[in-house]
């Protein structure tokens, strides 16, 4: 009769249960219904918004660095001979200055090629040709400030009265302003999406646990510790959040990659300056990881909270 209790009494009644022992009791219906997909979609959108924001930032920084020290000098002289003389004088003067890194005379042929589609061949050659200013690209050491510009303008005007100097960043200013606004917009979107993703993860974890309240109470009454029970649910919910997060990351990264390769095909140097670097990709990968961490913490807080309400 007593043989029915074939368990050795030494095998049981250990006061420190091993944590792994009840792991196989993880509930099968983990994240209920559409929640993993909601998580996947939210993570995907967050990744896309964050990726776009990072690309805009890179674009702004790269393009900014390229033209920050750039000046354009125009020689507005109608007579070709005088224009040529003045241009050479200006180039010579600029080359002597310590604060100038580079001086490039834009070849007249290039200018004509640039204007020909607009004005036509005969407008640019022969006696009736309209005068085209000579262009000199200047790169300063360091960024162009209003003071440096004024100082350079004065020194050049004294020598070449028909010279006109503009900072390249000046006429690109509105573009940079727009880029900055877009970056703020992306940042705001990321913040909103991150909050919504966090809420989705939180709700998913809570609803998964709500369906298992009965199980939690039973295991609790059978003598499981809070930690045993919390670990049980943490693991299964972290697993599901990881599935949703991974799907979202692949979706979002896929979309970014597609967009990136399409922009790259445009071949514009400015746009390729927005490409995502390894650090950017690492940041994007961190988004679903943060989601998993959040889901795990939520599971722990919810389980422990529910258990605290029991004796």
């Amino acid at each position: 009769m007593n043989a029915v209790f074939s368990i050795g009494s030494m095998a049981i009644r250990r006061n420190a249960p091993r944590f792994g022992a009840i792991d196989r009791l993880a509930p099968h219906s983990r994240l209920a219904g559409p929640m993993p997909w909601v998580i996947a979609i939210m993570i995907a959108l967050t990744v896309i918004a964050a990726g776009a924001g990072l690309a805009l930032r890179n674009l702004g920084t790269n393009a900014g660095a390229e033209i920050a020290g750039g000046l354009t000098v125009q020689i507005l002289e109608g007579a070709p001979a005088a224009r040529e003389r003045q241009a050479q004088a200006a180039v010579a003067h600029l080359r002597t200055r310590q604060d100038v890194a580079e001086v490039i005379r834009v070849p007249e042929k290039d200018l004509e090629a640039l204007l020909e589609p607009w004005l036509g061949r005969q407008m640019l050659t022969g006696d009736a040709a309209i005068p085209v200013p000579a262009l000199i690209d200047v790169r300063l050491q360091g960024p162009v400030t209003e003071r440096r510009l004024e100082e350079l303008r004065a020194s050049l005007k004294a020598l070449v009265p028909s010279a006109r100097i503009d900072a390249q960043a000046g006429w690109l200013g509105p573009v940079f302003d727009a880029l900055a606004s877009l970056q703020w917009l992306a940042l705001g979107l990321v913040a909103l999406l991150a909050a919504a993703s966090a809420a989705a993860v939180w709700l998913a974890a809570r609803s998964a646990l709500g369906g298992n309240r009965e199980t939690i109470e039973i295991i609790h009454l059978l003598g499981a510790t809070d930690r045993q029970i919390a670990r049980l649910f943490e693991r299964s919910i972290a697993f599901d959040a990881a599935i949703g997060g991974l799907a979202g990351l692949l979706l979002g990264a896929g979309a970014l990659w597609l967009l990136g390769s399409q922009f790259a095909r445009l071949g514009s140097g400015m746009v390729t300056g927005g490409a995502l670097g390894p650090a950017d990709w690492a940041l994007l990968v961190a988004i679903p990881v943060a989601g998993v961490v959040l889901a795990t913490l939520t599971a722990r807080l919810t389980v422990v909270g529910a258990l605290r309400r029991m004796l």
Partner: protein
Amino acid sequence: MTGEGGHIVQFDNVGLRYGTDREVLSDVSFTLFPGSFYFLTGASGAGKTSLLRLLYLAQRPSRGVIRMFGTDVITVPRARLPAFRRRIGVVFQDFRLVPHLSAFDNVALPLRVSGVPEGEIRKPVADMLTWVGLDQRADARPATLSGGEQQRVAIARAVIARPEILVADEPTGNVDPEMAVKLLRLFEALNRLGTTVVVATHDVHLLRKVSDSLIMRLDRGRLSDPTGALRYPPRPEVAAR
């Protein structure tokens, strides 16, 4: 294992109320002696389940003192309670099987919670399922079991880890009389191994089936002690058993 006085459970002036309602248990005082077999009887609504909930540490009383295993379990830090619960086997009135686990895994639950190695679980659980006549249903989910079958799984789960106290709430309510007697034999076997058994029932026929059993009677939340077995110190003829 027991208190200084040789008792395993001592209730002193325990009262319990749910919320702000009237007390469902009042002035309940009694002592349980290790290795004894108790029946808890009383009309429906008398407070049997409420008393058992205090016994299996699911509930704190509103007043009074409860000592178990020589420890005041009301003031003990919450973190120490799981270790006490693992020494108590419970058959819940509503079974409380984990719905997503098979009969086998439900029965194995107390062993796994206690950290018994996986290799030492299979045989005792299989043996126990055979004893309660469910070896063919080991892989079945609770939802696919009949009421009586679920009750037997619940009983197997309560006794599998050889608890020091077994608390059973109407454990034979859903089985035929023959199976009821068989399950009582299981409790007796466990009792002979040293477990203190408390069975709540309003089936008076059951009481006569276990010789040497002691009776606790609840009447609208108050405990009467018809045999004097619950006093401390016990009457000599009770102590001699």
